């Protein structure tokens, strides 16, 4: 409730600017949730694979970087979107 009052007070002072900043924060924060979990899964499983079969570590590492690159793209879209949002 206090938070809401603060937000409304900030919005009343300069209606668009504060809300834009909040929107940017929410956009990037929300966009980072999924890729955070996804990269954790990718790297965790890659480490398991490397520990079980050290001789295949080279191939697993390359594939892991590919998996990370595909997963983190979503977070980066959010990062760019946060810049594009203007108020």
């Amino acid at each position, binding site marked *: 409730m206090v938070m809401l009052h603060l937000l409304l007070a900030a919005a009343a002072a300069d209606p668009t600017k504060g809300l834009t900043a909040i929107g940017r924060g929410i956009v990037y924060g929300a966009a980072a949730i999924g890729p955070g979990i996804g990269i954790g899964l990718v790297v965790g499983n890659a480490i398991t694979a490397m520990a079980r079969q050290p001789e295949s570590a080279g*191939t697993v590492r*390359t594939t892991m*970087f*590919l998996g990370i690159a595909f997963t983190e*793209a979503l977070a980066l879209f959010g990062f*760019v979107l946060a810049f594009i949002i203007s108020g």
Partner: protein
Amino acid sequence: MSLLGVDVPPVSHVTIWGSGPLGINKTVVIYLFALIATVAVFYFGTRKKDALVPSGILQNTAESSIGFVRNQIIMQTMGVDGLGYLPYLATLFFFIFFSNITEILPGVQFPANARFGVPLVLALLTWIIFNVVGIKRQGPGHYFVNSVFPPLGDMPLVGKIAMYALLAPIEFLSTFIIRPFSLMVRLFANMLAGHLILTTFAVLTAALWAAKITVIIAPLSFALLVAMTGFEVLVSFLQAFIFAILTAVYIDISMHPAH
């Protein structure tokens, strides 16, 4: 902040083009440096190619990096078929690496790829290449069908129709539109984010140092700045590597479609 009298474009210019077609700023100077460095390494590094044992730092750098691109990027994805793309991939890798590494070069400290113009051109170049390779290797019709309708295996006809109604638009978007866009965004956003982090901690350290009592915690911010600088070396290398290997993977998918 300026280098040779040319200014860094401000952050608000991320989505705005520069001042006119011939406006030279710091980004352009760094790209020229990257271009000259890439050409110089391979021109001067390969002049003594008849010598059986490589000697000198340039020749060793050129030969071992060609070996790296060959073994770590091409053989891992395309196999022997893709060795013809070694010049393109090696150039791509080195150009991106040299324009990234200026992020931590003292006095410059700005990754040119943090502005999306050139990453966009590189991504479009890759897009053109993998499309042309696909059309050449499979023919236009087969290429389009293979990339938009992936094989599903055994399934009743109704299921196939339902699956393709869902899959075909997604596959089309992901192959022809999201691929170049995500290549561009991945490189540019990673470099921009790293640059912003370094700038934030540098400014924070200076501000803590300037104030009277907060001097005590300034070393913490400075230590993180040093650590992040080390991390950005890794990121510069990794982004160049990932751009090159994704290009190799896309060309591989065009050359050898799933059966």
